[in-house]
């Protein structure tokens, strides 16, 4: 008689249990097969059907060698071992159960005939095969291995090394990344706190050690930054953090922490800082250069005005004397030329300085209450000689008052009047008129000059733009640019209307004076 259980079981089964045994075997998660001496399956439990993928009915009568999808030869060896009276064990054997590969570890034990004499083993009549499903176990192992690998990659990518200091035994453990960060091979590392601290820069070492001991004693979190030995010259910059680990009984187990290698980040930040610093210096140099330029222009302007004032002043004094004494009247025209050119020179110097100050935003306007007709009269008084020679028509109501800056108004009107004189022949008429328009006054300066070609009007107020006339090319082309900027500075605008060979009208608006 063959029994459906391993025969090396020492206690004979109670009859009731023996009867129930097939059901017990069927309930087991382990694969159980009974084999005859040829290796043919004589019994199979439910788990066997599940794990091998053959229905129980198909399993019985099937040869052992047909069952495995892989590692069948191992089964064979284990079976032969069992027939030889020992327990055979396999590594992993693959079956195709549950529609997928199942990895099973198998033991095969001899099955002996029952004997009455308990100290004599019975004759081997077959074998019993038990198999344990390793699939889930190996998946757990694999995912643990994967997590370990991820942790390793994380340390590597994050340049983070892990360490733990067992305070009681004074042993320090380093992760692989710690060794890489500090350029200390595992077999070079002594594994004590002293060895751990040996990589810290000597200047920082005492402080780091004190902080670590504080953490071990009080649990205060450890956070330090220091330079340390690295795999290359120059070392590494480390941000270290750690805290205290205790066991369930609140006993200190270890100080666990990390070393994060911030060398690359610091290098990048250092480069950024250096670039910003260079930029800041460049800006400072430019500002200084700008300041020097302004100062230079002020000086140049001052140095030009002084001799100009002497030339124009003497020309005026001499002209007055010629008038008064009636002598040297042949000098009148040359003296007038001297005066005219000295004033022109003065105006050009003034324009360069104005433009420079306007560009630098250094022109402040201080609007005040002004009687417009007085402002126009003063500007006409200042105007160049050629303008005085022509006919001037002023149509400005005496009661018109504006809220404007006297200096800006003077610059605007002088530029417009000089332009009107320059671009029309001195003998033609120049008209200055003003009309209130809501909260502003619009002032118009009209000449009877050659007008401005339509394609030039758009750029007329740009700097250095001049409407060329064959007989005149003096000036920088800054006058209108400056005039418009001054008009805008005191809250107005400037524009032009022109018809070729009829003349041009320049308009500018200025806030009207209102009692507040």
């Amino acid at each position, binding site marked *: 008689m063959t029994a459906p259980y391993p025969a090396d079981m020492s206690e004979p089964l109670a009859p009731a249990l023996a009867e129930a045994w097939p059901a017990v075997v069927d309930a087991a998660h382990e694969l159980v097969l009974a084999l005859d001496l040829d290796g043919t399956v004589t019994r199979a439990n439910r788990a066997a059907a599940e794990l091998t993928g053959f229905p129980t009915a198909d399993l019985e009568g099937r040869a052992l060698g047909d069952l495995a999808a892989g590692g069948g030869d191992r089964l064979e060896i284990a079976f032969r071992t069992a027939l030889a009276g020992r327990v055979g064990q396999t590594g992993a054997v693959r079956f195709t159960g549950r529609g997928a590969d199942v990895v099973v570890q198998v033991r095969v034990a001899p099955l002996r005939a029952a004997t009455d004499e308990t100290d004599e083993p019975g004759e081997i009549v077959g074998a019993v095969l038990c198999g344990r499903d390793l699939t889930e176990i190996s998946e757990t192992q694999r995912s643990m291995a994967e997590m370990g690998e991820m942790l390793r990659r994380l340390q590597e990518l994050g340049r983070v090394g892990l360490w733990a200091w067992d305070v009681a035994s004074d042993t320090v453990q380093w992760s692989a990344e710690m060794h890489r960060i500090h350029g200390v091979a595992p077999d070079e590392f002594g594994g004590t706190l002293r060895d751990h601290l040996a990589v810290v820069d000597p200047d920082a070492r005492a402080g780091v050690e004190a902080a670590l001991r504080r953490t071990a004693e009080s649990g205060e979190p450890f956070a330090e930054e220091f330079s340390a030995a690295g795999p290359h010259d120059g070392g590494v910059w480390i941000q270290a953090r750690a805290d205290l680990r205790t066991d369930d009984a609140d006993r200190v187990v270890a100080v666990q922490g990390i070393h994060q290698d911030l060398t690359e980040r610091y290098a990048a930040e250092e480069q950024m800082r250096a670039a910003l610093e260079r930029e800041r210096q460049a800006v400072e140099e430019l500002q200084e250069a700008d300041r020097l330029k302004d100062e230079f222009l*002020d000086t140049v*302007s*001052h*140095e*030009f*005005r*002084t001799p*100009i*004032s*002497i030339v*124009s*002043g*003497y020309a*005026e*004094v001499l002209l*007055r*004397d010629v008038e*008064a004494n009636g002598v040297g009247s042949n000098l009148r025209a040359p003296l007038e030329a001297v005066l005219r050119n*000295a*004033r022109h020179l*003065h105006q050009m110097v*003034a324009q360069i*300085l104005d433009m420079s*100050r306007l560009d630098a935003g250094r022109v*402040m306007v*201080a609007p005040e209450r002004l009687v417009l007709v007085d402002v126009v009269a003063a500007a006409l008084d*200042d105007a160049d000689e050629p303008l005085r020679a022509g006919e001037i028509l002023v149509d400005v109501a005496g009661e018109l008052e504006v809220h404007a800056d006297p*200096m800006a108004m003077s610059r605007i009107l002088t530029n417009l009047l000089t332009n009107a004189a320059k671009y029309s022949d001195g003998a033609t008429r120049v008209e200055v008129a003003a009309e209130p328009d809501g909260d502003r006054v619009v002032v118009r300066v009209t000449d009877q000059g050659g007008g401005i070609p339509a394609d030039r009007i758009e750029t007329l107020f740009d700097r250095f733009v001049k409407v060329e006339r064959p007989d005149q090319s003096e000036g920088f082309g800054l006058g209108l640019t400056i005039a418009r900027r001054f008009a805008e500075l005191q809250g107005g605008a400037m524009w032009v209307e022109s018809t070729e060979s009829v003349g041009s009208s320049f308009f500018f608006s200025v806030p009207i004076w209102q009692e507040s």
Partner: protein
Amino acid sequence: MKSVLVVDDVDDARQLVRAALEPLGHTIVEAAGGVEALEILDAGDEFGVMLLDIRMPDLSGFEVIEQMRERSHLSRVPVIMFSAHADRGTANRALEAGAVAYLEKPYRLGELVDLVGTHAV
């Protein structure tokens, strides 16, 4: 008519004022710098008006007018500051410092004559 004291380090600038004002009956006294001007004032001569340049090598016009205030000259002689500085800041500063008027160089002959006529005591 009291004399006009002209303070300017540029000889030609002083000569120009002389040429402009002498034919109108003014007597001109010249000082080529701030120190000389203060010495002349300290000597006690009376002046109808003083024309004071700003940019001078020994003492600036502002330093001169400050000294004049300290030495009580400022109450006796009206000061017209003049300069080739062409900004409102300088003009305002001159008036704040105690000048009765500011004249920008180059000036019109008429402006000079009018200012001296207006302020001379």
